[in-house]
């Protein structure tokens, strides 16, 4: 099942995908154009933990002239960084290099504390796509990547759907691609992750308890390019869908 959260006629509703349309919670079926898309995760009672990986693909680590990390390079976001499918992300006027990052995103489904690698998938509700934009002009070497780069309002689109774990037999075997204005600029594969999904669930839950609805953005492969106002950026992962965002 592919679940979404949308605003339809002024009301927030959960929805599921049916034959290329959205079946709303109130029973109506509407087209993808009839709604405003929200991040496909329900509100949670506590502040949502949003973990994001840097340099988690061998090729991207190489591209950025780093050696592959020996343990996960992780940073955190606040909920206000998230944005929905088909929304807009602002590029400040003074910047020279703002790039997308297409990332497989894990949505936690059960309280996860000291989970063993072999059990990790039992604690996952499903998967979605994130576009973890970065503005490289603002990078500083203090708690890098710093929040000015990675925690900007609405600069982390998420969606379109939360796809149930049962519908994704092997998340470590998915193709990723990004297009800018229809032109392919990034292609990669989740099998090239340095730290895979079960490892990450085990590693984080070894010192921090994760709750349902918490997120792990697993990093991006090679091939990031600068994006300009007006550019339409589509980050897509096999089986999960195509997340569209426009730079403004």
């Amino acid at each position, binding site marked *: 099942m592919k679940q979404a959260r949308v605003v339809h006629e002024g009301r927030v509703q959960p929805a599921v995908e049916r034959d290329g349309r959205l079946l709303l919670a109130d029973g109506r079926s509407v087209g993808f154009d009839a709604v405003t898309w929200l991040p496909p995760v329900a509100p949670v009672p*506590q*502040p*949502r*933990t949003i*973990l994001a990986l840097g340099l988690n693909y061998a090729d991207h680590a190489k591209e950025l002239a780093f050696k592959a990390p020996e343990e996960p*390079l*992780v*940073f*955190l*976001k*606040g*909920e*206000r*960084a998230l944005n929905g499918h088909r929304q807009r992300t602002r590029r400040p006027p003074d910047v020279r290099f703002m790039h997308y990052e297409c990332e497989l995103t894990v949505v936690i489904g059960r309280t996860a*504390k000291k989970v063993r690698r072999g059990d990790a998938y039992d604690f996952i509700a499903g998967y979605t796509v994130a576009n973890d934009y970065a503005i490289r002009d*603002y990078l*500083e*070497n*203090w*708690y*890098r*990547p*710093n*929040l*000015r780069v990675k*925690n*900007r*309002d609405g600069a982390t689109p998420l969606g379109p759907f939360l796809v149930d774990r049962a519908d994704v037999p092997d998340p470590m075997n998915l193709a990723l691609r990004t297009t800018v204005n229809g032109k392919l600029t990034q292609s990669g594969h989740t099998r090239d992750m340095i730290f895979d999904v079960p490892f990450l669930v085990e590693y984080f839950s070894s*010192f*921090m*308890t*994760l*709750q349902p609805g918490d997120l792990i953005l697993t990093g991006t492969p090679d091939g990031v390019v600068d994006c300009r106002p007006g550019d339409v950026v589509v980050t897509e992962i096999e089986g999960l869908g195509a997340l569209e965002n426009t730079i403004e």
Partner: protein
Amino acid sequence: MSYLPRGTVYGTLLNFRSEFEALRPQMDQAPYKAPPRAPVLYVKTANTFSPHGAAIALPPGVADVEIGATLGMVMKNATEVAGCVLMNDLSLPHASFFRPPVKFKCLDGFLGVGLQVRPADPATLRIEVRINGELRQTVRFDALVRAPANLLADVAGFMTLGEGDVLLLGCDAPRPRARAGDRVELHSPALGTLSNTLVAQAS
């Protein structure tokens, strides 16, 4: 019901002059290569919240932790502060500030949270830190690198805080250390007392 943060809790590094001066000789060298320009923030995740009176477990092999006596400014909206709350921003000691400190600062229970949010001018507040009853530190907030209003303005320059989000004003250096078995008490005449006991986590 005691207070627990409903929004994201953001901590601030290098907002005390003592802390800044201690690192100043390293700031122009690798890996930093320059002093920070924007506020250096980090996140204290929901799993870290420890209410007043709760025991805080130290992982096996951890001898001691840094006590981080600070004030949280709890936001009413993007620009207005609803009030201040005592917080104990615990951290595993770490010497490098190059990478985000998730595995040092986001362990279960590593943020002591005061009972109440009260309107207050941080510049007039002090926090006394006692470990097993002995006064170890007195923290004042009247001579910060970025005074509260400046910190809020500089943070707002790159992200919007919202209702319930919390911005910590930072920690004075050197931070007192404490170990399993210690009772750590933060007291502020205006904000009350935040007390937590450190315990060894069962391995």
